[in-house]
């Protein structure tokens, strides 16, 4: 921010603006001046993901958003805009990591616990460093959904985006764009975990309660401040409404389809055991985060009609040398699939584009593979109106490549997150 404001001072027009606001508070001045000018990126090709690719394209970016996108011959570039000419490069939407553990100390997902973390927000726990942020941007991630990796109701995930590096220490809030992006849950086939989920469903699924009839005396003394605004539409006479507290509230929102939900299932056995709950509770249809061994259950997943999150890893079929790639097979079956890197650490994200290329070599449709890392995760998180593709009105999360985005020989040379350059090959040390 500071750097950009300084840069603007040298321009006459900006200097005039600065002069006008100089009499006001210094903070306000800095903010106003920092509003970036429109930039027109002229590229060889733009792979929009939402529609057909555009050759000789122009992306007009202003105020962190894509204002216009189209063929160079059709898009009018305003005089006020700076033109960045990138005739060799291809633009694509930025990658979205739909379930990342970046900035967290925990190395892996854990479906084992029986946490009731409905009031837990992972935004309060992340501890990012500039170095990590740089790595994410260099790997092409312009948006990440950080999730608490525990079992049970693990808590709220948060959406973060990389920002340009400054000299000041990084604070987590600078990255966070949503503190309640989703509810993260987990399950592993254990007696204790089953008891947790059974109790949770009994407490929260109104359908079950209606069937049984509400015989318990209603608590009229519940303080009104306790219920969240989102619960206003719920029938107050249902048991489920009484079950609403800080811990169950997000789960009730999930059942009402007000909040995206992810369920981590540690292996295909976990899915087999959880299938029972899916049968009894048709309202609960979370996005499943599955392991590479999920190839064995994809038919059932398809029948269930839920989206899945899979890494690019291939899993070796036990006792044989046959490799199966669940992400590929899920896409083949027409299951909505988001693909994530094979590791959970920011430092392991670097090869993500290459692993997607491998997925394509093994038979994935290139367009489908790119969608699995951009628009599909945006849809899962309910932010597809905001990001995930190159469309006018969406946030300017753009990657610039030396060739087709996921060709193994292509290189990422520049990344924009909300219009700001978060990675530039030429400026790397």
């Amino acid at each position, binding site marked *: 921010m500071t750097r950009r404001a300084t840069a603007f001072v040298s321009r006459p027009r900006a200097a005039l603006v600065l002069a006008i606001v100089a009499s006001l508070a210094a903070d306000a001045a800095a903010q106003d001046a920092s509003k970036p000018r429109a930039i027109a990126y002229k590229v060889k090709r733009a792979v929009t993901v939402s529609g057909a690719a555009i050759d000789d394209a122009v992306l007009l970016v202003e105020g962190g958003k894509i204002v216009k996108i189209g063929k160079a011959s059709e898009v009018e570039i305003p005089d006020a805009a700076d033109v960045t000419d990138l005739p060799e490069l291809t633009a694509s939407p930025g990658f979205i990591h739909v379930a990342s553990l970046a900035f967290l100390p925990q190395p892996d997902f854990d479906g084992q616990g029986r946490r009731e973390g409905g009031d837990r927000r992972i935004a309060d726990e992340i501890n990012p460093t500039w170095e990590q942020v740089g790595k994410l941007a260099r790997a092409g991630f312009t948006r990440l959904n950080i999730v608490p990796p525990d079992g049970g109701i693990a808590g709220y995930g948060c959406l973060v985006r990389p920002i340009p590096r400054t000299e000041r220490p990084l604070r987590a809030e600078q990255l966070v764009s949503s503190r309640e992006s989703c509810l993260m849950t987990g399950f592993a086939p254990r007696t204790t975990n089953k008891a947790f989920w059974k109790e949770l469903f009994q407490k929260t699924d109104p359908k079950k309660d209606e069937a049984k009839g509400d015989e318990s005396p209603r608590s009229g003394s519940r303080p009104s401040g306790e219920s969240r605004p989102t619960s206003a539409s719920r029938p107050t006479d249902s048991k489920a409404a009484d079950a609403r507290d800080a811990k169950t509230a997000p789960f009730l929102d999930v059942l009402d389809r007000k909040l995206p939900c992810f369920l981590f299932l540690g292996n295909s056995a976990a899915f087999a055991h959880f299938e029972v709950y899916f049968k009894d509770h048709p309202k609960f249809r979370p996005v499943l985060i599955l392991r590479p061994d999920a190839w064995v259950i994809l038919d059932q997943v398809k029948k269930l009609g839920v989206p899945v999150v899979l890494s690019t890893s291939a899993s070796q079929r036990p006792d044989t040398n046959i490799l199966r790639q669940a992400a590929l097979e899920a896409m083949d079956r027409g299951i909505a699939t988001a693909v994530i890197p094979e590791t959970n650490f920011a430092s392991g994200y670097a090869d993500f584009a*290459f692993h997607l290329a491998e997925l394509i070599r093994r038979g994935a449709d290139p367009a489908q593979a790119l969608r699995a890392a951009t628009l599909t995760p945006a849809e899962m998180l309910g932010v597809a109106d905001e990001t995930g593709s190159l469309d006018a009105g969406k946030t300017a999360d753009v990657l610039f490549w030396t060739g087709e985005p996921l060709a193994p020989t292509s290189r990422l040379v520049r990344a924009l997150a909300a219009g700001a350059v978060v990675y530039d090959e030429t400026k790397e040390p």
Partner: protein
Amino acid sequence: MRSVRHLVALVVASVALAQDSRPESGPDSGPAASRTESGPASRGRGRGRGRFGRGEGADSRAETRADSRPDEGAASKPVSPFLAIKDGILYPVSSPVVRRGTVLIKDDKIVDVGRDVTIPEGARVIDARGKHVTPGLVSVTVFGTFAGGFTPRGEEKTADQFDPYNQRMLMALSSGITTGCEGALQGGGGFFGGGGRGGGRGLGTPIGQLAGFVGKHAYGSIEGVTVRDTAALLVQYGAGDLLNRGQTRDAVRKAVEYRKKRSDWIAELAAGKKDAKQPPLDDPTKNWVRVLDGELPCLVSSDDRNDLEAVADLSVEFELPLVVLGANEAWTIAPRLARAKLSFILNPRQRDSAGAWNNPAAPHENGWSVENAARLSAAGFRWCVQPLSASVGTGGLMGRDLLQLNMDAAFTVRGGATEEEALAAVTLRPAEILKIADRVGSLEVGKDGDVAIMDLDPLDYRSFAEFTVVNGRVVYEKDKTSFFNHVQTDRSKGLKGSWANER
């Protein structure tokens, strides 16, 4: 289809790089390209036949179908509750062989068996003409077929940890093994981690411990897996172990006394004495009462003839039914053991671990004998066999793991047992020993729909299971599963019939 897409992907990549498109080899420059090309997909060799021969993509697809639940293939049509295994050579085990008969299963139970079976319209039919249809095999020991080997702790239940997609389970099914007991017997012989000879000499071991559970290999479903939550009471009892012997006998004596009190109490109730109180029962005694009542098997590991005599004495003293595991030297004293209520789990292919088999310098017959099973039969005993190893895998040596359970049975025939006894030793006998014969072990009306359909005689070393059915569900098909689908021999022509064919 996939190769076309592959080609398209490569063309796209190549065009973007303004290079010649060479779909045969892909983009040929850069470390990335060479890395991808050395990947597993290029490992395929041979053509069409073997597991490794097919292209990666085609292979994945074929297998996915086989590994998913075969029953649910046609989702649109309502599936008939009936499954008929038609016109096979039936081995009901509990009754004589039927040359051409049908097994009819409704839902998960057998509803008809025999020559004249009416197949309801719409029933799913497996044509078993010329094939050998046996009850699903029962192994008194399996390892890792349910969830890769687990030990339930605290409030955890075994059933909550099943992995119904466990590949080892599928492998067991490829040998027709539909029911197994996990966690009571360890490895190839003996339990508590030790060999069988001189079993029970260790100090400080529990005198009676519940262990194991019995389950079905219901691949692809967590329903209908558990048969018994607790498999057996394990006991150590040897001629040289004075402490254990004393404690065990005290415990059994208590149970015998309780049963006396209990029958008194029942008599009092029957006589109209309403205030008669049920005698108190503590937990350790309860297990022994269940053993004496014939509800729970009691397993004792014993190979040495002195130990076997001691075990027989224990059985005689308390009329205690015992299952002897190992019993390598039982053949030397089989008639003398006949006084006791014993049944046996034998290791027909395992020589004596002490290495002293029939040492002529010893004062009496000793060690291992191939005739063990036959001599026990002659003495009137019932026995089953356990495999050389309870685990299963494609590694190691073929014929030395769970997959060749039928070979262990066949080996008793080499020692003089009959084929009928041998087949029973992997079906009905283990079911009886595990106290689950009301559900599995034979093809009888009312029993579970667990069936193995083999291409040759079940005791023939050449035979393969072609279909395996558990709880009325086809859970294994040889042709659709990677383990043996490459075996394409026309077995109806090239091979001579075995003993059953000639009968």
